[in-house]
């Protein structure tokens, strides 16, 4: 579950968790949580090509929400895989419009 969340974060940010571990000295999930505290960092966090795709802001945030829940520090707070799939199917439906 956790690793799936990290893969989602990579899809959103196009940044490798290993390099963040080295350069920022923290795990990817922590780094994203920190970035979310400041708007300018949040913007830099996302993959620029996604920011330049019009009309997907809400979808990006939904996937980010899922990723944040999947990588929650407390394992019991992480969602179940079927629930994650449901949300992502909805996002996919929106993305296809």
């Amino acid at each position, binding site marked *: 579950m*956790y*690793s*799936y969340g*990290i*893969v989602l974060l990579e899809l959103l940010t196009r940044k490798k968790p290993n390099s963040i571990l080295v350069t920022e000295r923290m795990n990817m999930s922590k780094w994203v949580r920190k970035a979310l505290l400041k708007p300018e960092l949040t913007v830099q966090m996302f993959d620029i090509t996604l*920011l330049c795709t019009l009309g997907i802001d809400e979808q990006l*945030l*939904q996937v980010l929400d899922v990723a944040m829940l999947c990588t929650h520090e407390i394992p019991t707070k992480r969602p179940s895989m079927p629930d994650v*799939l*449901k949300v992502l199917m909805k996002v996919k439906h929106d993305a296809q419009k």
Partner: protein
Amino acid sequence: MILTLVVLVVGIAINSTVIAAGNTDRRRLVGDALGDMQVLLQLAQLSTNDPQNALGSWDGSRPSACSWQGIRCNAANRVTAIFIVNKQLEGVLAPSLGLLTYLITLDLRFNKFSGSIPPSLGACQMLQTLSLSGNLLTGDVPSELAQNTRMSTFAVNLNMLSGSFPLQILAWRELSVLWLDNNMFTGSIPDLTSLVQLKILDLQNNQFTGTVPNVAGLQALLDIDLSNNKLSGSLPTFLDTLPKLRYLNVSNNHLTGLIPDTSVFLRFPASAYAGNDGLCGAIIKRDCADISNMSGSNSTSTSAPKMLSKTAIIVISSLGGAGVLLGMFLGVRCAYRGSQDILEDLRGGEDSTLLSGSNVNVGYTVAELTKMTNGFVKANIIGVGSSSIVYRSMLPGGAIVAIKRLSEEKYSSDTQHAFVAEYQILKRITQHGSMVRVLNCCATPSCMALVLDFMPGGTLENKLYEQSMSWLDRVDTAVSVAKGLVYLHLDCAAHKVVVDLKPSHILIDADSKAHITDLHIPRFATSKIPGTIAYCAPGEHISILFCRVFVSAMMLLLDSLLGSIVMHQNLFISLSSHCSESNL
């Protein structure tokens, strides 16, 4: 009377105050929260070896057992579920378990419990899930279990149970999952059409005889696995009455006759029918004439080609003894050439009849792999892992596959057996559309390798970081991987699969669809279970385990998730307005 009976049958002293309280309601009589705790303490006491200290928190001085690890209770502090999974516990199952009248789930998968299944479990009238998979249980399934009419999941696979098919199962009208596979059950399989809720029927690797059981009209049935038994007779005609059927495996039995060339049979790969010497048809590329020639004219098939060959034999017979001899000679030659062709085709295709039985020498030989990979030349390497190298290779038939060869220090006769066992499960699991299929293997003393689907799109890592991916591609990937993980969580739970999930283990096929690869089954431990630190949750391994325990709690989260932006709605006004700004 009832009191004495219960105490006698169960053979342990229950909290005396409960008995003194005396009540005509049987449920009240056989226990309360303290009584439940006594039962669990007996379970712990009979678990003579607990190497992982799984029962360390089972402390008899607490007011109830509800705070113990692996125990769930209802509001009245009565035990409703026991989960002690993969803890290497040794011992026998406590006969007093039947006193847990509120027990809904008993999950003791992958331990080393021996002895028999306690007949007293029949008294657990609420029991819905009984999972004893992967233990060392012997004996038969007690007839008392017929009383567990709410049973929905009955998983006693991977044990050493014997006896005939447990007929008491037919009384469970709510049964949805039936795993009796990998035991030593014998005799015939009864008509199962009364199990109207049945979804999964796995009876593989037993000694069942007789015909394929009748499951006609079961609306919910998803998977049927009858492989590696001794079933005879022809293929069932009722497959088209099973609207949801998605998996069928009748391989390695003694089935005979033609596999009809209809969509209902074509849906399943040749491997589903392999290892039945008497089956023929286009699906398994075996001409029915070859079989009738091999076995003479006493075939029972009514297929058109068979009819022809019968006619031919009659004609030859009428020509006299010399004619018969000639016919037999031609027949033998034909069959020989035919079976050679089949061998070539199957080996070049997706399955090998050589896999039948439990021989260690399955699949390809080193010589064949060497040929397919041009001598394992560097030019054919498409991936290098910590304990394996992946080569792009061409099968004799021209199909491109990937061959993942384990490094040589892993080879030994012990790991070879485990490797074959792991291969056989992986092969089955990876039939799911979100997995990279395991097609075949090489398992000889000098070679341990898996033959996998070749994924021309490379890894997700490469596609995401070296190329470009649209948002829709990314969402598609996320959905495909999530589907695969849901499947592993729910449908492959008993196998306890571990996935080292990261972009380099997600491969892209020719249609840009993502597939998960690099699955492991720790039980076999043929390779060190990998873990990549950046993908590991703090303090834990990356394990995709059965998480039904958490599902109910997690359902609560769903609503908030679907309510879209929960956490950052104040933070973002418009992400896309930063596009040009950030570009500068």
